[in-house]
């Protein structure tokens, strides 16, 4: 990466320390200082109560064998070593990441294509643009219940349609691939339109002159898309990917509702679609293992850190290629 290709964001960042200068000079009276801290204190108070304390307390709990209703005893890092050998935890991790990839990749690609379409001259443009957002304002529980009905074995619409082309009814909950597919469909249905609108907003900020210039140079629509649209959209793609990552790791309601009935929290008979949050919840409230559940929570925190770093590296590479 050369300095010539460094995005404007870099330059902006170096301006940081320079800004600190004048503030240090105008330090002001003691009273002003106190007032300053008072003004910023709400954030720190709220963060301490709702962010820092739960984080540390969860860690404290994770060092114990802590029965939700009964006894508690100190086990040190015992929960962590047990967790590393816990097949169900790794299984849940694989499920979470698998469903995340299976839902996010097509979701962002379709959203990009959709945004491109919505950016054309269309009749009733606002109607279309509003329309793609509709799934997103639907209650997540309603989405879960309706899609579970659509994917039902005996009377589901999906199996009925597949029946017309000669496919035998599929028990969607039963297999790993089918359950992942069904859950990803739910996630995509809800979030594709939202991302399309985000991309659309970014598309409209791309200067028209770039396209006009490319047209004069004889660039095809495809190469215009590749060499102008995608590079200009990079910050937005970063944002959309980040939001999708956060949502993907926290995936809970869709798989839970998809497994309607008894033992919903185990995500299928062989845990084929149990996500990390479901496993955490199961440990805490079916097993009453509060300490172990807290350990899962902390491991999730680490997993999210790893995924976030991997994401950042990947996107930086993408940035360099363009």
């Amino acid at each position, binding site marked *: 990466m050369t300095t010539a290709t460094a995005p404007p964001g870099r330059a902006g960042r170096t301006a940081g320390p320079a800004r600190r200068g004048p503030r240090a000079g105008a330090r002001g009276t003691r009273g002003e200082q106190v007032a300053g801290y008072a003004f910023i204190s709400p954030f720190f108070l709220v963060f301490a109560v709702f962010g820092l304390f739960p984080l540390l307390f969860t860690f404290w709990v994770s060092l114990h064998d802590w*029965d*939700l*209703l*009964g*006894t508690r005893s100190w086990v040190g890092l015992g929960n962590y070593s047990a967790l590393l050998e816990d097949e*169900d935890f790794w299984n849940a991790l694989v499920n979470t990441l698998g469903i995340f990839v299976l839902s996010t990749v097509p979701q962002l690609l379709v959203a990009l294509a959709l945004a491109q379409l919505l950016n054309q001259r269309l009749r009733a443009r606002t109607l279309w643009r509003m329309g793609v957002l509709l799934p997103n304002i639907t209650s997540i529980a309603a989405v879960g*219940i309706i899609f*579970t*009905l659509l994917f*039902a*074995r*005996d*009377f589901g619409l999906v199996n009925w349609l597949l029946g017309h082309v000669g496919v035998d009814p599929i*028990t969607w909950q*039963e*297999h790993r691939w089918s359950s992942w597919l069904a859950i990803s469909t739910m996630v995509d249905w809800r979030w594709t339109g939202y991302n399309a609108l985000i991309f659309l907003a970014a598309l409209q900020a791309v200067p028209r002159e770039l396209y006009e210039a490319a047209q004069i140079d004889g660039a095809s629509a495809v190469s215009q898309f590749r060499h102008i649209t995608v590079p200009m959209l990079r910050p937005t793609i970063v944002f959309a990917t980040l939001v999708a990552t956060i949502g993907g790791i926290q995936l809970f309601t869709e798989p839970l509702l998809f497994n*309607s*009935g*008894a*033992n*919903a*929290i*185990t995500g*299928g*008979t*062989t*845990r084929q679609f149990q996500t990390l949050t479901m496993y955490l919840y199961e440990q805490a*409230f*079916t*097993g*009453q*293992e509060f300490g172990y559940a807290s350990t899962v929570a902390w491991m999730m925190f680490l997993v999210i850190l790893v995924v976030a770093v991997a994401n950042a590296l990947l996107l930086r590479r993408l940035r360099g290629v363009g």
Partner: protein
Amino acid sequence: MTSDRPRRPARTAAVLGLILTSAAAFAGCGGAEGADGGGDTTLRVAIFGDFGYEKLYDQFEAEHPGVTIVETSEGDLGKYNTALTQKIAAGSAPGDVVAIEEGQVVNFLASADKFVNFQDHGSNDRKDQWLPWKYEQATTADGSDTIGLGTDVGGMAMCYRRDLFEKAGLPTDRTEVGALWPTWEEFTKVGEQFQDGIGSDDVHFIDSATNTYNSILMQSADETYFDPDGELVIDSNPAVKEAWDTALGMSEAGISARLKSFSTEWTAGFKSGSFATVACPAWMTNNIKENAGPEGEGLWDITTVPGGGGNWGGSFLAVPTSSDHQDLAVELVDFLTSAEGQLGAFEATGNLPSNPTLYDTPELQQATNPYFNDAPTGQLFVAGARNLQPVYLGAKNQPVRDAVENAMRSVENGDTSPGDGWDAAVEDAEKAAG
């Protein structure tokens, strides 16, 4: 599990109305006359599903001027259990009186200090009001602390579809049907006959192997997954393996609809007729009625269960020590779990009393249910409850049971071989037992 007794909109509306009116009353006449309210007390009752207490509340309120009872009901038992556990652990109970389901009561015994001990209020003198095992279920192992008093028991019977039996060429009269299956082996044979007679892949004899498995298990042993010392005995207790084999035998015979209990498809199956029989504790009748709807009236009937008797579900009422009105709450629990209270609940919902002295009264002996072809529900369920052997369940019964049911379902779906399924069940059970 007495899961998913549907929540009643009328009650919700009533509760909401009550909250609104009391809020309005506070806002409107704050400090106008009798500022201290003349000792008005509100008792909060937290239950799941429908316990049929409306009329009993009215009676209690009439006998205790100044007392108002507000009931909150959660439709989903799983959600209710989770919320109750959280709130009890945090020391802020959701009610002055709370319902505890059978599967959860062992858990709460571990923190008996969070509940009022009914023995301090003379419950030991009235012990014979409950089936002995019912009273013991909510009493600590040393016998010194009773955290809840019994409401209903899930006396077992078998519900079946008359129209499907007729189509399959089987008898439909409930005495004749009951005579077909004194044992589970014969029940399986009847199932095979049914499957041959009905000649359809869309209709099966039983809903799933797991429900049948639980019914068999609860009949055949005085302990299931845990011995009274709390040791996991799933591998050494022959009753578990026998129940497992018998239930999966039905699945292999092709008579199971393979529907997970309380799933949307299972619920819909009552209406569409995906299965012809379902293990039927007393509270299930209300469930069938809700799921099959008005057009299902007369299609379902009730008869005796193979193996004679059994229990599935049933509840207790308890008073958390965090309540501000403990004495009054205890009084309410005493009233609701008394013979009079249990009879009132039976008449409202069909939940079978846990008070054995009621079993020979004309109210129960002559009770019939018009939805089920006037089946003599009182006699049928009483017979089921009387033959019942008390079963010891350990504190970790629920997670272990979930693990075993999951393994069984994966065998039933054909994902796992029966041998591997059993190994998985034992392994997962050991893990769940901690």
